[in-house]
């Protein structure tokens, strides 16, 4: 066996490999579809029981969708890093000497894919359960909102997931760190979604201001995450 080192691998290939690995594991284990999704759906139904009023539900539908998403985000992030730490794969990734910012983007994109799948189901269940209507311009706003909010959540989730990966008491630390940080996403995505749903007489055009905020958030944590992720998961 020769000892020459192999050709350097481009960053894009590492991103793809990590992304495919995470997605493949999800397709195989179906944790998001079989556990997280029912959990999120349950949250939506429980809110319907607790609030018990059609008008109120219609009014707060947007907020409930994003609240359920945030709770699910915590579970998905923990699961995503539990896979990597269970058998020391995170150590192997570090020793492989690859660029860890590529791992960050790979994991973030995989997380975003799972979140989008979840959000689509949640939004449809809001349409059915809470009797919300969306018009054509609302759909455009909604799709943009989902895209921007999900990018932000995926970046910040991967960053803080990496920070708490392997730490003692991470189950309790992650929500403490993550929830205050994603507060702007909750507010902005909720308002934009409400505008798209027309809840409480909101106009669709009111929603676009929020999209800007979501985009800034995603940009800040995308850049911050790619810079900081490597040093956070290292000892």
């Amino acid at each position, binding site marked *: 066996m020769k000892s020459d080192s192999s050709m350097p691998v481009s960053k894009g290939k590492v991103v793809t490999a990590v992304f495919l690995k995470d997605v493949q594991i999800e397709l195989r284990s179906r944790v998001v579809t079989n556990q997280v999704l029912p959990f999120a759906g349950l949250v939506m139904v429980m809110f319907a029981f607790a609030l018990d009023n059609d008008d109120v539900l219609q009014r707060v539908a947007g907020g409930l969708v994003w609240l359920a998403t945030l709770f699910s985000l915590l579970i998905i992030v923990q699961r995503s890093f539990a896979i990597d730490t269970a058998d020391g794969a995170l150590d192997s990734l570090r020793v492989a000497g690859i660029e860890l910012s590529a791992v960050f983007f790979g994991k973030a994109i995989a997380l975003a894919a799972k979140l989008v799948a979840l959000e689509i189901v949640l939004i449809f269940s809001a349409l059915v359960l809470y009797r919300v209507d969306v018009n054509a311009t609302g759909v455009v706003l909604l799709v943009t909102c989902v895209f921007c909010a999900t990018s932000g959540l995926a970046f910040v989730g991967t960053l803080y997931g990496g920070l708490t990966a392997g*730490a003692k008491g991470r189950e309790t630390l992650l929500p403490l760190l993550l929830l205050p940080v994603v507060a702007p996403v909750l507010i902005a995505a909720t*308002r934009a979604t409400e505008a798209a749903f027309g809840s409480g007489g909101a106009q669709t055009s009111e929603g676009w201001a929020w999209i800007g905020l979501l985009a800034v958030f995603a940009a800040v944590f995308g850049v911050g995450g790619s810079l900081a992720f490597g040093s956070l998961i290292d*000892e």
Partner: protein
Amino acid sequence: MSQVLQRTSATGTRATKVIGALAILVMVWVVVSGLILTPQDVVQGESVRIMYVHVPSAWIAYLAFIFTAVASASWLISKKHSMGFDRFAGASAEVGVMFMAITLITGSLWGRLTWGEFWQWDPRLTTTAFLFVTYVGYLAVRRLEGSAEQRARRSAVVAMLAVLEIPLVHFSVVLWRSLHQGATVLNPNGDVKMDDLMLFTLFSGVVAFTLVFVWLVLHRQRTMLLVDIANRQGLDAAIAARKTEGSVR
């Protein structure tokens, strides 16, 4: 407090004693002036007196968090990664969290008097509450196990992200309120007609709290250094013990 200082010369110096004495002096003046000398406000009546402790503590809390961010950035940027920066960042965040807790409590007491409610989803209050939780999280990150360098790097990154959060949270909350609620709530700071003595007392409050902040941070970061030194000495002993464990076999 100066008596206490003499007994525990551990982290005290002449400078901190002077700062401590000044802090007590100015603080006494703030309390006397704030509670007795200053007049009532035309709109808010007696409740305006809370302002003299509430507003300075809020300012100093924000100052502390900015100081934490600056110290963290210095740690990250500096080639030597001097642990002094890390200790200053941690000490300042601890003091900041305390001042922010004071801000929230006195703010809600004041709110009860002016609004009739302990809590309003006012942008400034909401931002403050989020920041409080964020920095409680920062302190939790500092307590994670790991090497000193790893702890410093982690917490420096979290501090930088947290300080970026301040404008993001504030802007989103302001936008949120502006769209859904007119400016109907009485703004506790805006409607106060301040005469000279009131202004001077508020200013003294800022001075007093700044002195307190400096005094606390100096002592706290020196205490952290003492713990680090004690750990390092413990390490020498531990290495020696470990070596004998090796040679016995």
